[in-house]
């Protein structure tokens, strides 16, 4: 166990800024990427719903006329 208490852990032997700076940015990048994919998926589903309905409307229209 290298650290006795929490504050020592965060100070990281004086290099806290650098270590947590890089870990923080990595976390942001990874979480950002996952959110981007989720968002892309949601817009896809929304857009999906539309295109799918349009297809349905069109097909019904053709059959009736």
């Amino acid at each position, binding site marked *: 166990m290298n650290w006795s208490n929490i504050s020592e852990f965060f100070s990281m032997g004086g*290099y806290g800024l650098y*270590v947590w700076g890089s*870990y923080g940015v990595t976390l942001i990048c990874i979480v950002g*990427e996952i959110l981007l994919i989720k968002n892309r998926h949601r817009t896809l589903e929304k857009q999906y719903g539309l295109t799918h309905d349009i297809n349905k409307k069109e097909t019904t229209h053709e059959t009736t006329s």
Partner: protein
Amino acid sequence: MAINWFKYSSPASFYSLAGKMIPFFTVIAIILLAAGLYVGFFVAPTDFQQGEAYRIIFIHVPAAWMSMFLYVVMAFWAGIGLAFNTRLSAMFASAIAPTGAMFTFIALWTGSLWGKPMWGTWWVWDARLTSELILLFLYIGFMSLQAAIDDPRRADKAGAIIALVGVVNIPIIYFSVQWWNTLHQGASVSVNQAPSMATTMLAGMLIMVFASWMYSIAVILKRTRIIILERESHTAWVAGLQKKGTVS
């Protein structure tokens, strides 16, 4: 029984296969990540030379390896897509690019943050950092070319060509930067990790490497599924999916 190589190359069957694989890889990625961080921060001793700053290695090295490895994998799939005209491999290549670019950025960012305490400046024209920067340009070139072309088929093929040309150039760029760096002797002392690494440090780093592998596989499969949906929206099997409401 001949192996049917192309069974999973049809987007429909790959879609369901990927769907099953993603949770599996995500869980493994999380477990490995937790283990790697634990070993990295709590088991690995303090480095006699660099104190605690060396702990950045646990994300810098995996990110750097992943950025180079993913570019080669991307070029491989782009080449396969070009050669066999299989749409799915081209989709796979364009799914890999953003994750690879992200890892390159992380490698650059953590590299410069690690360089500050060790070499005294945020950015050092060290051969590896410079080639990593050029790799980022290659990724951006690939992604912007694919974004600029509307027709997906042409975008895949054009992207494949630039990826293959890029992958051929990576060793050339690396060695020319290496040569350039040694000529301008003003460069800094580069950090040599291998010899002075205690076993626990190495173990922590390797666990993180595998964690980044699992993470990349999960994310790339996820993005491939989305690209499949985007491109195959007109097909019947996707409409079928829609009815069942399982566009998960």
